[in-house]
């Protein structure tokens, strides 16, 4: 059934269809309509989940950790400062190998206070051991939540599903809401061999001395390395069942383009439009959408970039003192390549400033004109 819904409603429907057992959340703009919608769904009995309305984001994730240890499928959602406040618990969830799914609606961090779109909140959590999946449109948001539980529960790793503030969260699009039966065939009920059994004394997340800590981290890393393959399999199964899917990285536009524009999140849909128009004008440019940023799908990216002469990246995020985070990741990924295309790292749209077609065009034109960037960090639309 198709309905016109916002990105945040798509989140709520994804959670409902996933038969989540426990939700724990705390409100923050622009995530709030997710918790409102879920409260409605729970109160009306359409979703038979327990909803813990806790007193902070820190407790929201802690409650999910307790419930997930106890064998429940859990969900929480937040944004920006809320995610930053959860930071400690993000480590507890991944270190405890708990398949929690968290939705983060990208929002800039203060000060100055800013409620608008910016990916720095989620990207600054990239070292916490969570899989990170970024969405381009509302249909993808709903579908990614269904896939996220499959991936999380296959590997005992938590997943963060990320969508843009307002551009997706509060903007309505036509979304196909699959039937419960169809989803049930795709996502079996949660069952973990690690679930706490009251009859079996033992300790969860206890003191782990230097003799063992390294090995525990090694095992999490090994599980992370398996993610791309598992995610591809899950996506293929999803495609077979629902007739649509999302690759970890997606190359679009002219196949043999020598300049490639890399984006992540909703700005990709604007980029698609700009690239199509510029290709029609005879410009030599194609696009690459990066859906998964943790683990970083390096092999897939290298494959997608093969033969490309120059790479432009638009980052709606900033690692202060370095530059755009996606550009940084790409450079690290391409370092061992014999033929390394220069990476043009653009930063744009921080704190919710629109990334218009003109801004994207400026980045592409700059890259087409020059053989190398003038510096590692190129600002778009900066008022000097």
């Amino acid at each position, binding site marked *: 059934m198709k309905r016109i819904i916002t990105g945040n409603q798509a989140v709520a429907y994804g959670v409902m269809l996933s038969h989540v*057992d*426990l939700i*724990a959340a705390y409100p923050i703009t622009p995530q709030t309509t997710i918790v409102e919608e879920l409260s409605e769904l729970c109160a009306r009995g359409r979703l038979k989940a*327990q909803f*813990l*309305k*806790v*007193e*902070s984001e*820190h*407790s*929201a994730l*802690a*409650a*999910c*950790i*307790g*419930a*997930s*240890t*106890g*064998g*429940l499928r*859990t969900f929480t959602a937040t944004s920006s400062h809320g995610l930053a406040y959860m930071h*400690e*618990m993000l480590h*507890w969830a991944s270190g405890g190998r708990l398949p929690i799914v968290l939705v983060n609606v990208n929002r800039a961090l203060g000060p100055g206070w800013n409620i608008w779109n910016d990916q720095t909140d989620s990207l600054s959590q990239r070292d916490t051991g969570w899989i990170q999946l970024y969405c381009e449109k509302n249909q993808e948001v709903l579908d990614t939540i269904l896939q996220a539980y499959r991936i999380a529960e296959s590997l005992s790793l938590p997943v963060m599903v990320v969508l843009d503030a307002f551009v997706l969260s509060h903007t309505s699009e036509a979304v196909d809401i699959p039937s419960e039966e169809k989803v049930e065939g795709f996502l079996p009920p949660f069952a973990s061999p690690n679930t*706490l*059994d*009251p009859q*079996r*004394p*033992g*300790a*969860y*997340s*206890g*003191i*782990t*001395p230097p003799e*063992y800590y390294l090995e525990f981290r090694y095992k999490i890393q090994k599980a992370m390395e398996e993610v791309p393959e598992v995610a591809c399999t899950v996506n293929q199964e999803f495609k077979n069942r629902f007739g649509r899917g999302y690759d970890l990285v997606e190359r679009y536009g002219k196949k043999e383009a020598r300049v490639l524009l890399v984006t992540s999140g909703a700005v990709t849909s604007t980029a698609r439009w700009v690239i199509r128009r510029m290709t029609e004008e005879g410009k030599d440019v194609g696009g690459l959408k990066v859906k998964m940023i943790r683990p970083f799908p390096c092999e897939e990216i290298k494959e997608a970039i093969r033969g490309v002469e120059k790479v432009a990246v638009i980052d709606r995020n900033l690692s202060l003192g370095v530059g755009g985070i996606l550009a940084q990741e790409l450079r690290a990924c391409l370092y061992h390549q014999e033929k390394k295309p220069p990476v043009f790292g653009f930063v744009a749209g921080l704190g919710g400033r629109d990334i218009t077609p003109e801004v994207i065009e400026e980045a592409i034109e700059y890259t087409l004109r020059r053989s190398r960037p003038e510096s590692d960090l190129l600002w778009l639309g900066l008022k000097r």
Partner: protein
Amino acid sequence: MKRVELPERELLGRGHLACAGCGAAVSMRLTLKALGEKTVLVIPASCWSIIPGPWPYSSLRVPVVHAGFVTGAATASGLRAALVRRGLEEVLVAVWAGDGGTFDIGIQALSGAAERNEDILYICNDNEAYMNTGTQRSSATPCFAWTTTTPTYHPKENPKKDILAIMADHRIPYAATATMAYPHDLIRKMEKAKERRGTRFIHLLSPCPPGWRIPSEMSVRLSRLAVRTRVFPLYEIEEGKVTIQEESLKEPLGVEAYLKVQGRFAHLKAHEVEGFQKWVDGEWERLMRRARC
């Protein structure tokens, strides 16, 4: 003191890592005797994060979920929800937190859980400072006490928080104080708390030989003195009604008897001992007023 049968079961095994004379080890042993096998412990960062032993060992014969410092009550809320959903309602979820994890860093999560009246038993094992990190002051440290962050030439100026009043004022069904010098009272209160539903809170005073600078054989005597001097009165608050245990209603000893045997108070001058007595008397009056209401 009302006598109860002390259960024979031992759910604290050999090989735990508590210091000699640790009040918290005896408190845990007695607590688990009362709570029994159908208990899951949630332990936020505290001495008891270490005492059960490192991975892959555990000296506790019940499952333990170690939790972030802040999160005892929140983790327990989620875990309790999971057990109920799995049809394991008879399994008790008990938080065992230190005074730091209760009075200080964990109070927000605890207050949230109490407001939601989560079906958990929250036990605060109070040794009156951050003992696991080497005796730094907490908001449970008594005034004038030495700690490594309140040196004797600049001791703590403020009295400890009245955590039981704070918790009782959340209108939770059961709140009580107990200490291991009175095992029958401790066990009776744990058993009573176990039978209740909703958020239950028990405040245990557990002497810490290294942190209080007392010989290890003194812990039980110190807990008894804390009660007999009214530094730590034994009482319970059920649905708002205060009952003070007879041991605390006896003619009290002067606080000096309690203070003079502890190294952490060795620097106290006469006027400070007097000030401490005044504070104890004031707290007792507050409690009596509450009991009369």
